[in-house]
């Protein structure tokens, strides 16, 4: 069976152990996690996790079923029609061409967000595929450090 990329949202009770239950499930059953983000859902006792994973259709189906089986899981959404975004922070030496960097970031919904004595930090927020392109494009400005946030998604 063909391996596919899937974005899965999991709505869980925001309680102790819940992240460990989810990540432990992936580790224990040998499922792949490409990215995982988690944060509380405002004004509820719930958290929203977005997980990007890869596997064949049977594995993906098992992942959603096993996630649902966890007692604190309220909802599992295997996304098809979604808005997907990711953020990335990149640190550049101050000697690089800052106007170029600024222009590049702007093309990816970002900009320079911090300037220090020896470096600048730039930010971009876009679709995961475009973030990948952005990172490739930053290579020529000798990035010192790159931090990606992982994907968040919302069904349309």
């Amino acid at each position: 069976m063909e391996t596919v990329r899937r974005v899965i949202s999991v709505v869980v009770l925001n309680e102790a152990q819940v992240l460990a239950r989810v990540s432990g499930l992936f580790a224990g059953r040998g499922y792949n996690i490409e990215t995982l983000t988690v944060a509380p859902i405002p004004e509820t006792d719930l958290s929203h996790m977005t997980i990007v994973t890869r596997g064949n259709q049977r594995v993906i189906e098992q992942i959603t079923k096993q996630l649902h089986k966890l007692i604190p899981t309220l909802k599992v959404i295997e996304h098809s029609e979604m808005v997907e975004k990711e953020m990335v922070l990149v640190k550049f030496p101050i000697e690089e061409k800052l106007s170029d960097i600024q222009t590049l970031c702007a093309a990816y919904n970002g900009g320079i967000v911090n300037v220090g004595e020896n470096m600048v930090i730039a930010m971009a927020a876009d679709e995961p595929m475009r973030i990948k392109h952005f990172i490739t494009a930053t290579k020529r400005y000798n990035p010192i450090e790159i931090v990606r946030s992982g994907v968040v998604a919302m069904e349309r």
Partner: protein
Amino acid sequence: MKISGAQMIIEAIIAEGVTKVFGYPGGAIMNVYDEIYKQNDFEHILTRHEQAAVHAADGYARASGDVGVAMVTSGPGFTNAVTGLATAYTDSVPLVVISGQVPLSLIGTDGFQEVDAVGISRACTKHNYLVHDIADLPRILKEAFYIARSGRPGPVLVDVPKDITGEIAEFVYPADVHLPTYKPNYKGNERQIKKAAEAILKAKKPLLYLGGGVVLSNATEVVRRLAEISQMPAVETLMARGVMGADNPLLLGMLGMHGNYASNMAMSETDLVISLGARFDDRVTGKLSEFAKYADVIHVDIDPANIAKLVDVDYPIVGDIKIVVEKLIGHLEARIKPERYHVWRDILKRYDELHPLTYHDSDEVIKPQWVIERIGEKVGADAVITSDVGQHQMWAAQFYPFDRPRQWINSGGLGTMGYGFPAAIGAQVACPDKHVINITGDGSILMNVQELVTAAENKLPVINVILNNHFLGMVRQWQTFFYDKRYAETDLSYQPNWKLLAEACGGAGYDVTTKAEFDAALDAALEGGKVTFINVAVDRLENVLPMVPAGGALYNMLLEHKES
């Protein structure tokens, strides 16, 4: 009412109707044991090892159908219990295990007897709790029992820090649980059930594939009725032995790695598998691509994750076996023509005549299969049979005439050696009026042999029949077949004196080398009312056959019993 956390645990156990608790005290759980000392509502049975406490609670649960309860202390007490939790988890046995934990203030400091119990048990419990606040304790206890017994049953661990068991707080045991994230689906989808019924009516070679879920959902009667009205043949997994009843003409036998020829051929040739509470374990299916190759599959299971996990399913039905099968019968009753499957049953009958489940008996040496048959003849329906893991387990599953559910108790999924004896203790506690016989081997029995003391102290007359081949038999069999007879560490020639060992602990022991001696020993044990070892010297090199080599197709069985 203001009471301590320890008293809350006692009150919850009583409120849940629990009458027997198995356990072992220690530092972090002492507050609870102090309250156990002060009450008379339930009996506490002190095992001699925490693993045995959990297995005993498990055996109790399987024999009675109720939730089993075990109690252990923190650290090593808990880690000893882990094998018990994993065993119960794999076989979907409802347990509530309460473990002590170091005080909240010490958690995370590598305190004495501290171990991350919820972290360790996460993958081998249905759910687990670390109690952070005494205000949560009544709710957690209520949820633990509810989660353990509902849906697909399983073990639940409640880890309680010592300061919480000592703290005083208001206690009201909740009447209901409020778990919006946990709602097992019992009913089954009507449309799917109807479609499945249509598929059965159209099938030419349908086969009932019965698993442990039938036992767990107490669905034996309706499943037998479904078979009866339709005259469809049935195969049982290891966990479903007893569902159809040994004398039922529709039962082909057990399928899988050590299944009989007719059962495995039926699965290989069927055009419609009706899977009820079975989960397509690798020991059942053999090579997946060859498994039920010509069949559509109806899969009824309470756990959606079991459906289409390994095999593509045409008619998935999430629900309780009993409810779904009742509905199926409703759709079929007026329309099904039992004679429709006559030809199919005839084919299977011929398969069974071609290669019946059998063995070559001997007058020189006791054959292990003979022992099983003999026990069946002597006590049959009156006994509860437990087993350990290995050759003896397979022979028991093959040759004992099980005729009701909950009569056969074994660690099928995890395959835990050392399970049988403590599980038999639990079963004996649940069924004081029945004979409880643990069929075991000379390897397995030593893995919880200390429980002789528990059984003797509590006057629990569990009979352990040790099929003694001086080998770790099943591994030896694989070494014979697949490792050119290199018997790496499987020769158990060095042995204890079994008779004296049993006697030293307050039990009775018999060494048996002939059939007559076995009969005499079994009679004496059945009469004796004491925990017993019957050490039976059996043919050393007897193999469990038929056998489907691991990863092979079900229809490729090693069948021949060669004279050893």
